[in-house]
């Protein structure tokens, strides 16, 4: 049989819970070590040197980084990986190409798992990307299409 602890203990516990939850609600945390647009662009260009885009695609001359935004370390590298990935995705989705060519493009997609972006995705994004790639390899490309629609057609 357990005896009842004093109310003061309960009040202390309730206060601690409320305090911790309030910190979560109100405190935005320390400032992130955000990179400047130029440092993120440098990351992007460096990563681009190691990645081969799908035929017909080129790296953008103007990068979408502005000094108005803060960027985490590796954001440029990840963005380059994603651009690379989507060029192959767009090729795999291109109806003007033959089935064999599209299949070859599809087979490039799992290489995303070896990139910096994939290694640094949060778990749910990684899971979504895995599911998207697996589905695409099985013939269901709707998620892939939605994920890479921002890229448009080859240029």
């Amino acid at each position, binding site marked *: 049989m357990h005896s009842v602890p*004093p109310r003061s203990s*309960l009040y202390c516990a309730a206060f601690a*819970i409320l305090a911790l939850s309030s910190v*979560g*609600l109100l405190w935005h945390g320390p400032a*992130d070590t955000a990179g400047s647009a130029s440092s993120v662009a440098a990351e992007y260009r460096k990563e681009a040197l190691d990645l081969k885009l799908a035929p017909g695609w080129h790296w953008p001359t103007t990068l979408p980084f502005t000094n108005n935004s803060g960027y985490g370390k590796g954001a440029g590298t990840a963005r380059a990986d994603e651009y690379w990935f989507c060029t192959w995705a767009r090729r795999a989705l291109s109806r003007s190409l033959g089935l064999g060519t599209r299949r070859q493009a599809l087979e490039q997609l799992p290489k995303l798992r070896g990139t910096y972006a994939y290694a640094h995705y949060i778990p749910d994004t990684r899971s979504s990307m895995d*599911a998207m790639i697996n589905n695409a390899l099985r013939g269901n490309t709707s998620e892939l299409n939605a994920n890479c629609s921002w890229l448009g057609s080859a240029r």
Partner: protein
Amino acid sequence: MTEASAETTARGRLSVWLFVAGMAGAGALVGLLAQVLRQNTKTFSGAFMDLGASTAIWLTIGFLLARWIAQTRPPRDRIAWISVVLAAYLFAWLIAYHTLWGIREQLDFAQVWPQMRFWIAAVAPVCVALGLVAVFSLRKDWLGDACLIVPIGWSLRDAYFYGHQGVSEIVVVAIPTLLAALIPAATARRRRWRPLVVAATLLLSGAVFYLLMSRFTLDSSS
């Protein structure tokens, strides 16, 4: 205060803090396990990764432990104390889960905290809600019926969501999630269930948690 009452108070304080510490330990273990499953892409299949990132089953484990503790506690302040032990579990789970993620991904605290903070903020209301459900689930009336069914309601979304992703997800995530949620109801033997209450609770809680957890899951903490 007499010597006997002082001893009783001290014993009461000790026992409840032992439960709080135990629940915090359980929460930390669960959080670490969930993140290990989530991150070890080379060791585990995608289904185990999904299990790590799911929410309902880990919530249900905490609920089951809290309900077991509720059965051992005296009625006075029981809801409040069960809320406290649940808060210990939830805080420990979320902190362990995100901390291990930060360590493995070599992230700064400044990068981890934004992912974690709203979960931490949610603990205060959630622990009270779960504390109420855990304690009321011990009742024999219609409210008890409803509270025994609520865990199934919050598990339906994960079971449905992951169940759609393939056979391995059904086996590894959906079925264990539902089985864990069924434990409170299944162990309520010789209970005279009120079918209308059960159906209404299942429908309502399923819909509410489906909407809530589709927006706020550890699976979408981006």
